[in-house]
């Protein structure tokens, strides 16, 4: 993507943020870090005043997030800066029971995803974020013809791990 006029901040943010966080959670198993990566990706998009089609922007964001997760140290320094600048008040509206329930559910999925290699996790999470095989191949650095093989293996390992934790797949 090239720099040009700015994107619509609200529309772009609303269309991508939740999916981006879910994707990063799947990759990292760390909800806080996932949100940091998603926000960092969006900051780069808007900070650099990039533009493109909605599909192109979405692919760029996920690809950037993939690189940021791989380059974890770089984001963590920004994370510390963000935490210093902005008080975190997330999840204030949830009841303790609801938060516990969510945390347990996330822990089961996180543990299952931890059984996968980083690349298998990236492919699985991108596929279930709605990306085509070509977009996945481009983002994670695979040949398009290898995405099916990688995805099938990732699904099998994830399903086995979930079943091992007592969850039917």
């Amino acid at each position, binding site marked *: 993507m090239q720099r040009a006029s700015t994107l619509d901040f609200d529309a772009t943010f609303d269309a991508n943020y939740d999916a981006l966080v879910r994707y990063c959670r799947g990759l990292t198993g760390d909800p806080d870090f996932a949100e940091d990566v998603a926000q960092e990706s969006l900051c780069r998009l808007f900070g650099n005043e990039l533009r493109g089609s909605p599909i192109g922007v979405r692919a760029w964001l996920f690809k950037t997030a993939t690189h940021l997760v791989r380059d974890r140290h770089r984001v963590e320094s920004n994370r510390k800066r963000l935490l210093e600048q902005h008080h975190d008040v997330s999840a204030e509206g949830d009841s303790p029971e609801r938060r516990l329930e969510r945390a347990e559910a996330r822990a089961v999925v996180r543990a299952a995803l931890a059984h996968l290699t980083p690349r298998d996790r990236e492919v699985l999470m991108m596929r279930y974020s709605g990306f085509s095989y070509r977009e996945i191949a481009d983002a994670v650095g695979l040949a398009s013809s290898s995405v099916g093989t990688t995805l099938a293996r990732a699904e099998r390992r994830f*399903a086995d791990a979930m079943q091992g934790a007592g969850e039917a797949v």
Partner: protein
Amino acid sequence: MTHLDDAALVTIRDGESTDPRLEEHLRGCAACRARLAEARKRGEAIESMLSGRAGTPDAALAKARVRRRLDTERAAAPRLFSRAFRRAAAILAMSAGAAYAVPGSPVPGWLGRGESRPASASGLSEAAPAVGVEATPEAMPQEAVLVPVGPRLELFVEEVAPGREVEVLWLEGSTAWISAGPGARYSVAGAGATVRAPNGPVRLGIPRTAAWVSLRINGRMVFEGTSDESSGGRTVFPAPGR
């Protein structure tokens, strides 16, 4: 034909198959159709697990946070960049100088061929020497510096007159280079290279295989990502003003 493997089944399930023989086999094979149905069921279950249980992030808070950060960075941009650039220049000077002194270091090769010369106190080499660390790509001009290409390639073009064109050639080779005409000063360190080019046309050769490229001209980010596939091998960026 033998039965379809798991990869073929998920490819068909996801509508990504381009091999008509797979579909043909499926039509005549009840066992594979049953396995495809299982793959669909498994896909739906995984989708539910990955999206339904993850919890919804606090998007409003995140949006406010991103907006605040952008506002802060935009307000502070000139001062921060200036400070960051001074720090980067100092680091470049130190690392180039240190690497130059190490026996076997490629830095002298990057900075000059034949008559190797150390980086100046500012970290910038005065001339635009051609070098021969690797086989020189055909498209590379006579006067250029080579830039080592790792997973990340960060290029800074400075002191270009606003409006002047900076040309990027997306190459098939594995070597990046910068050519900026007479009077240009270059600095190469780590994953990055800086050229100050007050006079000449600036051309950059960047391998398509570079995993991640960022290009700043006069302090403004003009490109970040992988190679620009839509450009037909050449992209031109008008230099922004400071």
